């Protein structure tokens, strides 16, 4: 589904990777190795060299806003532009079930952004990006700020997305998480990717 080849970011390259539908690929590597930059590059948020295809269609043939609806990135640090959580959702009602399955109260939409905890922010940013079921999910440390229960709910949401056929590329620092539910793991060092064996 997602095919990346010869991708260069500021941290180096070339990087090539594929993510098939229904697959969860963990992206690992030391801090500062450029994992987040790879996700940003795939979402077309930075100008980069290389070819990125979705279902065989080159990215340049798809207008950027359309591309980002199909290939959704949830950055590690989420951005907010309005005071109320609900104002960040195109269709707040559609998001309620997803917000509940992420372990949050359904009236989280009425909350003020300034009073959210880091973990609440992270899960609401995930809900905001995934509510319209994108084909590719690019998740940057989706459970980093979450406690046990919240992390499990979030992992379940990711598994369900994978069950519905999404292609998921996820940056994680947690080898246990990668082993727990990633189909396979890629390791980034010195700007180069290498495949890790599925079972360590």
């Amino acid at each position: 589904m997602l095919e990346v080849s010869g991708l260069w970011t500021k941290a180096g390259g070339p990087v090539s990777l594929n993510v098939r539908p229904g697959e969860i690929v963990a992206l690992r590597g030391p801090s500062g190795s450029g994992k987040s930059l790879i996700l940003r590059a795939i979402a077309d948020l930075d100008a980069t060299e290389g070819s990125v295809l979705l279902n065989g269609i080159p990215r340049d043939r798809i207008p950027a806003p359309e591309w980002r609806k199909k290939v959704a990135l949830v950055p590690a640090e989420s951005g907010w532009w309005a005071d109320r959580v609900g104002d960040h959702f195109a269709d707040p009602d559609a998001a309620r079930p997803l917000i509940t399955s992420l372990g949050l109260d359904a009236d989280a939409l009425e909350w003020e952004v300034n009073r959210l905890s880091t973990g609440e922010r992270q899960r609401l940013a995930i809900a905001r990006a995934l509510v319209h079921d994108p084909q590719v999910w690019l998740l940057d440390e989706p459970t980093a700020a979450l406690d046990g229960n919240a992390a499990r709910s979030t992992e379940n949401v990711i598994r369900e997305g994978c069950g519905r056929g999404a292609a998921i590329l996820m940056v994680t620092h947690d080898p246990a998480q990668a082993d727990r539910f990633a189909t396979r793991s890629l390791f980034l060092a010195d700007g180069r990717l290498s495949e890790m064996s599925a079972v360590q």
Partner: protein
Amino acid sequence: MSGYLALSYWDLVLASGFLILNAVLSLWLQLGLARQMLVAAVRMVVQLLAVGLVLKAVFAAGSALVTFSLAVVMILFAGREIWARQERRMRGAWGPGLGAAAMTVAGTLVVLIALTQQIGADPWWSPRYALPLFGMILGNTMTGVSLGLDTLTASLWRDAAAVEARLLLGATKWEAVRPFTRRAMRSGMTPIINSMAATGVISLPGMMTGQIFAGVDPTEAVKYQLLIMFLIGGATALGVVLAIVGGIWRLTDERHRLRLDRLAPPTGPA
């Protein structure tokens, strides 16, 4: 122009006594303002005396070339001033160029229309009308453009995560920057809106006061002042819009990305 009372240089020396009193007060209270005040006062005296002489010479020359050259010099100074007031400047020619271009297009357009359609001096570029008018409009447009651009670049920089969050949800670049566009426009337009609202009640504008001093009937002076305020308002709005649209265009690209790499590293406010 009956009843015009000329000032002697002695009158000015007496008036400057108030400023000297201020400086003495500052020394006495150790406010540390005396030096700054003195430098500013000397600058003001030299600049105004010089501009008086220059204008006298230009009026006497009555040449279109000289008039236009002086207008160009004014644009260069104002453009530099806009550039100097930016905390986050754009790289390359866009840095000094964008603000100056927006101000020049807006100011020139409005002044040309006013000179040819409303004031109707003969010739239309007559320096006695053209240069003071251009100066007033350029000065106000400059303030609006520099505030608007500064707000735009500063808030795009500070709120880059929010802009990118909207882009990631499938917004176009224009949708993504809309709250920041609005903020920048408001900041550029606020001074002129405030001064329109205060004019006549809290302050009597300088030009109107000047005409009244020169013996013009107050209602006639008011008409001129209104004309000027409309021109300033129009030129400022146009200049601010041009600068902000140009700024957004430069700081985003055709793939709807935010291109903050096109900003130079921050400078302290000049």
